[in-house]
């Protein structure tokens, strides 16, 4: 059976970022210190990709880390059937931080981001992806459900490839409203992404095993490049 494979993996978080090609890299010390202080607004697109991305500063935290993780996948989208590339997102806390911000500002541009699935729209617009979509909000775990749903799309032929994304964007102040003190999802902004597809024979492909998406991405990013 041609089980789906991981084409590429990426992640970013409090300490740094990485993907299966470059491995893990730490943020510059100043930026890292700012992120440790929950100052996530200091993280710019240019820290990772040189130039600035249009509208990036207008995005909420979830969309920022989500878009960055997907960009870190380093996919040549033009080589995929974009109409058949799906996006499956998993997030426990969703748009919670943006919800609080909307209640404080009542701004229409903030309201747009008060849905956990807005990050899907941002990814699809940036990369012109038109495949199936799903956003899951489990009460525990991270990433496994998104992978399961994506694998099913691929097995059933509903998608030719699929972006799986696990992301969180909430600070300790916002989380303080809820019973989340010991929740591992409350560790600032973080995201892990995978691109899954049917096997193509490329050397960069890895078999899809058990494990959460973020853990899987971290493990893959920690491995030496296989090119």
């Amino acid at each position: 059976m041609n089980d789906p494979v991981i084409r590429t993996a990426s992640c970013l978080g409090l300490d740094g970022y990485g993907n299966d090609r470059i491995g893990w890299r730490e943020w510059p010390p100043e930026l890292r210190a700012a992120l440790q202080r929950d100052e996530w607004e200091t993280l710019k697109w240019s820290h990772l990709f040189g130039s600035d991305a249009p509208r990036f500063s207008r995005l909420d935290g979830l969309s920022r880390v989500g878009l960055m993780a997907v960009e870190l996948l380093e996919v040549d989208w033009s080589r995929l059937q974009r109409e058949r590339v799906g996006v499956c997102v998993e997030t426990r806390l969703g748009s919670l931080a943006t919800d609080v911000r909307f209640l404080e500002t009542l701004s229409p541009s903030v309201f747009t981001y008060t849905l956990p699935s807005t990050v899907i729209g941002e990814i699809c617009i940036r990369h012109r992806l038109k495949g199936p979509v799903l956003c899951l909000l489990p009460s525990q775990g991270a990433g496994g459900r998104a992978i399961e749903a994506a694998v099913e799309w691929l097995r059933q032929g509903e998608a030719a490839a699929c972006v799986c994304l696990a992301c969180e964007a909430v600070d300790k102040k916002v989380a303080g409203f809820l019973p989340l003190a010991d929740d591992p999802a409350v560790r600032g902004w973080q995201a892990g992404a995978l691109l899954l597809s049917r096997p193509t024979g490329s050397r960069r492909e890895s078999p899809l095993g058990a494990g959460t998406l973020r853990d899987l991405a971290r493990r893959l990013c920690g491995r030496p490049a296989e090119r």
Partner: protein
Amino acid sequence: MESAPVIASCGAVTALGLGLEPLERALRENTSGLRAGNRFAGKRHQSNVAGYVPEVVLDELRATKPSHADAPAFLLAESALRQAEQGAGDWLKAVPPARRGLVLSTTKADVAALERLVGGHSCSVPARRHVLPGLLATDLAEARGLCGPVECVSVACVSGLLALQLGARWIQRGIADAVFVVGVDLVTDFVMSGFTTLKSLDPEGCRPFDRTRTGLSLGEGAGAILLTRQTRAPSATLNIAGWGSSNDANHLTGPSRDGSGLALAIMRALESAATAPEVIDYVNAHGTGTPYNDAMESLALQSVFGERVPPFSSSKGLLGHTLGAAGVLETMVCVIAAARGLLPGTPRLRERDPAVSAAVLAEPRAGVIPGRMLKINAGFGGTNAALVLARKGL
């Protein structure tokens, strides 16, 4: 699609009242559940017309579970779920708890509790938990003794249809033997303020597909649909024959003007159901009443069906736009249509927009038993979803 999951029973709490009976009556009489309310007195919302669940119903639900008196999302969803359980018949008793699953569909869960917390007001422990949709799903499952898989889907206004797709998949794959798909959302200051900032509300109440439409009306409520295999519920008459979803990849809050994204989702659903467009007897449209949505949707239908667009209507004038519950409640409208032999009308539509296909039904059409139906929704983030429903034997 092999072994299509069947719809065994339903439950609802809506602006029309508790249970399916008020919904059935309103469908027959083409009446609206929208009304001007005073829940947000002193707030400057664009409109106070919405599909509010009547206070008498909320009070009744609060009385049944005083510990959750300030947790309306839970109360509405649990009531709908319980109705679906009770309507299922004896076969459900033979399904062990570990084989009963739950898929919750919501956009904001109990966001009213977050409003209170941010405002420094008191909030019960259950309500605090239900700010997080995943925990609301877990607590609902626990309350009803559902020990099988539990999931929460949140993809704007297509959440309900995607939740039904996921539940149907679980049945097909044998992950569960009975899956309750529950949709719930509330009319709160948060959502009223949000849509006010976008200037999306119609001050007079929504008029889907009407020439003079100016916006949507929000609605609240919960719907529950119980899915299983045909062999378990032989008396079930309607199955989920196919589904599809897509993204416009165009704009975050507006639909693609040509309807191509929605058309793509419809074509995917028809293909997965191995159904030709010509055999669809009725379409329950998204039909929010916003100028852009209704125009886009009409174009999408014409793009898929050509000059033979099937009769279609919108249920937003009936219930309001119930956001995460919309896909579930509007699928339930299709279930009632098939069971009662009627094609629903579009409450509050007075004068059809000439740009909208003439196939739109302003009034219900009685004496017609639809064999195959299409349910469609579109939402923020450019998301689209479609579901094909078919009568047994077709």
